[in-house]
C-alpha cells in the first residue's frame, strides 16, 4: 500500500491595523473606493490564518509535518512579522494596498518557503464574515478540496 497523502491545517492568530489607500488616487477617489477602510488613522482586525500543508504521512512519526517545526516557522515568519503591527508600515505593503487579498498572497509566499511539507492552501479570516483563500499561482481550487 502506498503512503497515504493527508492534509494538515493549522490556524494562527494575529492582530494588526491597516488602512486601504492608494497614493495615486485623489482623496475623493480613495474615499469612494475604500469607504470607511480609508480612515486616515487606520483600523484593525484580529486575523486568523489557516495554513494547509499536504504530503505523505511519514510512517515513523505518523505526521505530514512535525507541528513543532510548523509552529516555530509560523512564529518567526508570520507572527513576529505581523502581530501588533500596522500592515501599511511593512515593506510588503509599501507598493500595494494592504487588502486581505494581497495579504493572503504574501502569506502564501511566506509559507511556500516552509521546508518540510508542500503548501496547499492559505485561508485568511479578516473578520468573522470575510475570508480569503489562495492556492498559489495558476492553481485553481480543486473541487476535490472543497
Amino acid at each position, binding site marked *: *500500500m*502506498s503512503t*497515504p*497523502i*493527508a*492534509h*494538515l*491545517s*493549522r*490556524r*494562527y492568530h494575529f492582530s494588526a491595523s491597516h488602512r486601504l489607500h492608494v497614493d495615486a488616487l485623489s482623496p475623493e477617489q480613495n474615499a469612494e473606493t475604500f469607504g470607511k477602510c480609508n480612515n486616515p488613522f487606520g483600523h484593525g482586525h484580529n486575523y486568523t490564518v489557516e495554513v*494547509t500543508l499536504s504530503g505523505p*504521512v511519514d510512517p*515513523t*512519526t*505518523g*505526521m*505530514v509535518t*512535525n*507541528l*513543532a517545526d510548523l509552529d516555530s516557522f509560523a512564529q518567526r515568519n508570520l507572527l513576529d512579522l505581523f502581530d501588533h503591527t500596522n500592515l501599511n508600515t511593512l515593506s510588503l505593503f509599501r507598493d500595494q494596498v494592504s487588502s486581505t487579498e494581497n495579504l493572503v498572497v504574501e502569506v502564501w509566499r511566506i509559507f511556500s518557503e516552509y521546508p518540510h511539507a508542500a503548501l496547499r492552501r492559505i485561508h485568511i479570516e479578516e473578520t468573522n464574515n470575510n475570508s480569503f483563500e489562495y492556492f498559489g499561482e495558476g492553481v485553481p481550487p480543486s473541487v*476535490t*478540496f*472543497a
Partner: protein
Amino acid sequence: MILLTRKADFSSAHFYWNSSLSDAENERIFGKCANRQGHGHNYTLEVTVAGEIDPVTGFVVDLKQLKDILEHEVVSVYDHRHLNHEVPEFATAIPTTENIAIAIWRRLEGKIPNARLHRVRVYEMPDLFADYYGEHQ
C-alpha cells in the same frame, strides 16, 4: 452532485511514541506528546459524503442513518477510550490527527448507502485539523 457533511464528537486519550526509536528520539520528535501517561482531546469529526439527491426524499443520504453509522463505526469505538491502548488500528500506527483521519476513512469506506465518502476531517482542537480524501487524493 451534492456534498453533505455530518459532525460528531468524541473525547479520547492518546500519546505519541514509536517503539522503534530510542526514548531520547521519541522525546525529541514528539515533545510533550510523548508522555506515556497520555493526555486527551475533545475531537470533532466531520464526515463529508458526495451523492445525488434522491428525487423521492430530497436527501443525498438519510442523516439519521449517517449519524447512526458514525456512532457505530467511530464514536462508540473511540469515545472515552485511550486510542493507543484500546483502539486496534493504533496498536501499529501512532494516533496523530493525520492517522486518525485515515483510520476513520477506512472504518467508513463502503458503509454509507447511496453516497461516496468524500472527505474525513478530524479536529484535534479548533486550531488543528487533518483532512483525508482517500488513497487516490
